């Protein structure tokens, strides 16, 4: 476990990952965390609590909306939905992420990963 769990991710990355996850459909916080952990095979270690500041940031800029509903277990849960501008923003983020990765790969002399 690293000393500062935030240092694992570049700033803004968590938000991007959350947006990407929400393209699957409305999810509550725990589900988002589970998805992130599974998909990255546990490589991206992040304290799950940090999801909530990230979600607040996304809510405040209108990229996601939240609604209270009932989870499959029958408990009250807040479900997050990506908005149209959330999708647009995600597209921009992925594009700039690709550009950065390509540039880094070039500098490191590695083959450019096909996207």
């Amino acid at each position: 476990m690293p000393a500062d769990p935030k240092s694992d991710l570049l700033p803004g990355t968590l938000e991007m990952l959350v947006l990407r996850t929400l393209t699957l459909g409305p999810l509550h916080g725990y589900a988002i965390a589970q998805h992130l952990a599974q998909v990255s095979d546990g490589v991206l270690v992040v304290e799950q609590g940090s999801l909530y500041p990230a979600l607040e940031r996304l809510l405040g800029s209108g990229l996601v909306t939240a609604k209270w509903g009932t989870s499959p277990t029958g408990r009250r849960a807040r479900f997050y939905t990506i908005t149209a501008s959330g999708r647009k923003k995600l597209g921009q983020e992925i594009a700039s992420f690709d550009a950065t990765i390509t540039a880094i790969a070039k500098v490191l002399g590695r083959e450019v990963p096909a996207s």
Partner: protein
Amino acid sequence: MSWLDGLRHRLDTLLHPGRYSAELDEEMRHHQDLARMHAPDADAARRQFGSATRYREQARDLTWLHLPDVVGQDLRGAWRGITRAPSLTLLVVGTLALGLGANAATFSILDALYLRPPAGVEDPATLRGWWIEHHRTGDGVPFTSAALNYPMYRALREARGPEARLALYVRDDPHLGRGLLGPKVDVVYASAGYFGVLGLRPALGRLYTADEDSLGAPAAVAVVSDAFWRSKLAGNPAVLGTPLQLGPKTFTIIGVLDGPFRGLDLQPADVWLPLAAITPPSWIEGPWWESDNPYYFHALERWNPALSDVAAEAQVTAALRALDQQRSGVRADTLLAAHVSSPLEARGPAKPRAEQQIAVRVGGIAVIVLVIAWANVINLLLAHALGRRREIALRLALGISRARLVRLLTLETLLIAGLAALAALGVAWAGGNALRALLLPEVSWATPALDWRAALFTAGVALASALVAGLIPALQASNPVLTETLKSAGPGSGRRRSRLRSALVMLQAALAVVLLVGAGLFVQSLRNVEGLDIGYDSGQLLFGDVQFEEGSEPPAALRAAQSAEIMARLQGRPGIEVVARTAMPPLYGFSFTTFYSGADSAGSLGVNLPTVAEVTPEFFQATGIRLLAGRTFTPSTSGAPLDEVVVNDATARLLWPGKDPLGQCLQFRARTNPCVPVVGVVETVRRERVLETESKGQFYLPVGSKWAYSAGETIVVRAAVNGTATASAQLLEELRRAFPAGLARVTPMTKNLEREYRPYRLGATLFTAFGLLALVVAVMGIYSTITYDVRQRTHEFGVRVALGAGMGTLVRQVVGEGLRTVSLGVLAGVAAAVAGGKLIAALLYGTAPGNPVVLAAVALVLLLVAALAAALPAWRAARTDPVVALKQD
């Protein structure tokens, strides 16, 4: 709209902070519960989630929940900032409030006079009034008026054709209820077409029809305004069909108007009655609508924009000239032309009233006062900001962020602006009411002195002025070269910008001079007008008369007898020197009578026709009119007075130029009547106005003469010096005793004259008030600038005092420097006053804009006051202990 989603979320959080926390807690607990179910053990789950407290805080920091704290902190900081220099804050707020309040107050008057169309009128842009241009005045200067008589209206209607939508109306203000003690009501007698022309509809009941407005057989029906219905009739729908008593006449209320309409004039109207129901003057013979004499109607027309104004005017002019020709033969062509224009008095083509002209100029001087206020505020804030450079540099050095600093300074300015806006609203409200009372005291306004538009505008301009005035220095000050400022806050650091501040002081001085010169000119005019010898000893004269309700006047013989008795009873009482009687008080009105002198008919004298005054023999002594030749009337002991006439000098010169008027005679009413001898010549006194450009002919007949019409109902009392109060009380008591059914009143002659002096008094009052305001503001500017400069030079003064400079030298130097700036401003102001003087020249009397005495006096006053304003800080500086001054930095 994604930013809207975000904003909604943020506002939602801000408005329901409790719910926000509860929901976040619930959500995190849910998460942790689920994690515990799937994780190997509780510890692992806790580790996986991290510190809930910390993330809660992080999330909370992203919301706007901390905003009130930050804003509160900044506000407190800003408040501390402005209260640390309370005198500065007060000066800025006060200056802005006075400048802006003065403007809002004058704006509200000008808005009512010129800008705002009357409330409730449909499409005011196509509503017109007919105006008539005459040249029937004595000196041949044409004048324009909206007054018509009924035959003129008939001619106008025929000329305009059956398609034209016309209406005729006249105002009146009878007493509500019977007798003369009830409150007055503003009524409009209007033809039935009036409502259609103005686009008015009833909210309740109906309006009257053309049938109900037939000449000679009017229906006694009344329509009332919505405001009157609500305030005076308790908003009761059952008032329809109930009577409305207006003096001796009873009307039945048939409708309540819809909407805010209250007539077309500044004075709001409340009741509309059929035009045919007017009470014509009692002396008109035959039906009033055939007579030339009720000459007070106003004609309205709903204009068809497709028609040409010029063609319509030509058509109506021709019709009216033909009418004039037909009716008055000899005096044809006294009417020049008909004009179609706005129906509103101030916007029509008539010469504006003096009050109106003054209101416009007051609008101008209010703007000047505002410019002075702005200059002063910028000056004060600039000086203040420069003075704070050191504090600001220190705070920047201590690590305050530049953004926060600008925010704090902006907030300070905003706070000052808010205070200024509030104070300006107060000044505007009070000033607006004062100005209304001063300029148009006869109007009982339907709208408050400060409506929401003016209030919004005032607050907006106050905010904008304070922001602009405050932000420039704030931006300048927040960007200092740190080390330099910290090193050398003392001597000389503010000197570079003092040129701008000197220019501002100059501007203030110049504008103050302009306003004070205006004040001086008006004061001089007022003194000139009041000093005119009008021929009467007006200070001691009282006039007493009695009003009766229409139709309940006592017979003339009884009135004459009672008046004679009052005269006899008052004679010789303490405080009363002379008692006399006359038909009407001087300068109150005049009457003509037909007379013949030799072969000349009265008509051949044209416009200069002398007027008749019916007086008792004591009248001349009572009023102080001097006898030039012959004698006054022989007092009659009993019965009718002798047949005698007294003429004034102007009449004598007009009728018998170069001859001795004594021994001449006049025939009254008919050439066949006996010739009445002229027994005396008196000096010519003012007949109608205090400022008469030519002497007006007048002759006097004894009250009770068979040629006189009046019973001499006005009692004239010449009170002893210091006896006006007792004389007035006794006169009133006697009038009441003799005529218990009437309404007795006693009017000092000075009151009748006041309306003549009023324009000059108004000009003098308003210009003096604004001029003094400007002077005070300018002096504050001079004082604060010099105080600041001197403070900047404390070090220099200290050195010079230490080197042995005398106090006198230092004071002389500082005052000299200040005066140099001010005198440049005074020179510019004198030049501007002379150049701008033509704007008020027409309102002056006996003086002109270039008057050297006024100019010199104002220049001297300003320099003197400026010298005092400079001397105080200079003296303080010269007294500084050199040790303290040198140690200071």
